[in-house]
């Protein structure tokens, strides 16, 4: 009985690891193969570690353009989100004022709206503001999407900071803004880094809104590259695999390097739901 249970357990763990890592490793392997290698035997090892597929992927699709866009949207989308929500989370965590409860309820309504329900309305808003097919439009929309999670993570962090710290700053004659930026922000780094990782991944991975809010290749991000060049790559499978890896690897690197932040962020962000 005990042995049977152990076997079941290991089988389950093995299956989970296989399903999680298998697709990734297989595509990584195939990205070094030639077309004929892939078609003749897709289970074999690549003959050599040739990078020509990767070079070709960057030639066929403007991947470097998409890459640059993804980095810009990721960095500024995260920065804008943290700046705006850091400010409001601080005020909501620290001060009592009329309408605070109402404001918090209204802001948390954003959790109940599935993004896809807003496809056409946001398209209209972005268009009307003249932000269609511009990176700044994406940056603002993504900063908004991260609103509930960042607000929650940051305000819970601010609540752990003792009030005395600011009070002594005020006694020393520092103003409100100076206290926030020079004293509160530096000691809130752990909270900000947690929120930042989740927000960055949101910006990096988002697909449906970049699809409807941009046109042409000028302002698109990496997830869209896979969609639009699916057919271009289709004649050359090795290149398709290489392009897929190019999109996947940064997310995995961010995750492995900042695993602690991702995990604590998910745990903190979810408790709200």
């Amino acid at each position: 009985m005990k042995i049977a249970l152990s076997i079941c357990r290991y089988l389950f763990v093995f299956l989970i690891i296989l399903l999680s890592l298998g697709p990734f490793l297989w595509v990584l392997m195939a990205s070094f193969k030639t077309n004929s290698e892939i078609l003749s035997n897709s289970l074999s090892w690549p003959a050599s570690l040739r990078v020509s597929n990767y070079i070709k992927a960057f030639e066929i699709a403007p991947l470097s353009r998409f890459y640059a866009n993804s980095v810009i949207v990721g960095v500024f989308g995260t920065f804008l989100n943290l700046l705006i929500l850091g400010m409001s989370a601080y005020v909501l965590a620290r001060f009592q004022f009329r309408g605070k409860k109402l404001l918090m309820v209204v802001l948390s309504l954003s959790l109940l709206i599935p993004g896809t329900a807003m496809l056409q309305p946001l398209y209209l808003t972005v268009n009307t503001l003249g932000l269609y097919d511009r990176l700044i439009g994406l940056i603002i929309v993504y900063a908004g999407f991260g609103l509930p999670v960042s607000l929650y993570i940051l305000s819970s962090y601010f609540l752990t900071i003792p009030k005395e710290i600011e009070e002594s700053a005020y006694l020393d004659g520092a103003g409100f803004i100076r206290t926030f930026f020079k004293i509160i922000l530096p000691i809130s780094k752990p909270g900000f880094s947690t929120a930042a990782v989740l927000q960055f991944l949101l910006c990096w991975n988002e697909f449906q809104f970049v699809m409807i809010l941009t046109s042409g290749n000028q302002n698109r991000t990496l997830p869209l590259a896979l969609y639009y060049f699916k057919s271009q790559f289709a004649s050359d499978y090795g290149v398709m695999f290489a392009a897929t890896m190019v999109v996947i690897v940064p997310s995995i690197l961010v995750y492995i390097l900042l695993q602690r932040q991702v995990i604590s962020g998910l745990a903190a962000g979810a408790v709200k739901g």
Partner: protein
Amino acid sequence: MVNHKGYIVLFLLPTIILFALVYAVSMVILFGTSFTEWSTGLKPVFVGFSNYTRMLFEDTSFKEGFWNTALWVLLQSTLHVLIGVVFAVILNMREFYWKFARTVFMFPNIISGAAVGMLFLCMLNPDFGVVNSFIRLFGNSDYAQNWFMDYATAFLSVTMTWLPYAAVVTILILAEIAAIPDSLFESARIDGASEIKINLFIIIPMLRNIIGTCVILAGTSMLQKMDIIMMTTGGGPGNTTMNLPMYIYKTAFMDNDFGYSNSIGVFLICFGIVFVLLIRYLFRIGSQ
């Protein structure tokens, strides 16, 4: 304390503007135009509830999209959560592989949905996909199942792109188990309870709240799944993998039927709210 009123307003204002721009304005447009007939370049014309009656009583594509979405919500909030909970309980035994397994399990959740779609598109490719190659290895050398394009297998194939990947559930459950006081386990062990009994009768009941939260997160995530479907089947063949998000996209951006699309958006939001309330009630979330 010093009066900070002006600064409070100043610090809240950007968030309020952001909220208004992204959510509030969208909701006004969504609800308002769901009662209109509206297309590109035209002014919306008020038509009362006709979009809703068309949606609920006439449109078979909507019906198919709704049932697929509902089935995916059901699968995700049961099987998916179950996989995550079982895996968390196993990892909690802290055997040699647990950290590695926890990290690796997260990979499919951390990469872009478009990339997950691409991975599965490659793996399930009829000619060179690893799944068919593997099946050919064991006999049937002509096996060429087109998983995503076959009516019989498309729904299952799409489901497999998200059903097993319950790493978020696992992480939340692990965090919650770590918060259970050790004294509880110790007294159970002293009383002679086996590991299985400890898991079944002590750990799992204490996780009611967090499992409810996971059910909500997993279920509602199915109300926004579009990227993977877009990459793999596009809702086809026929409407076998059509869900409500895909249908909203299709009616708005391919048929230019904005008013109708927005009435489906309203329906989607209501669906989500009913689901959340139902699960909160079933799991008595919030009460002890």
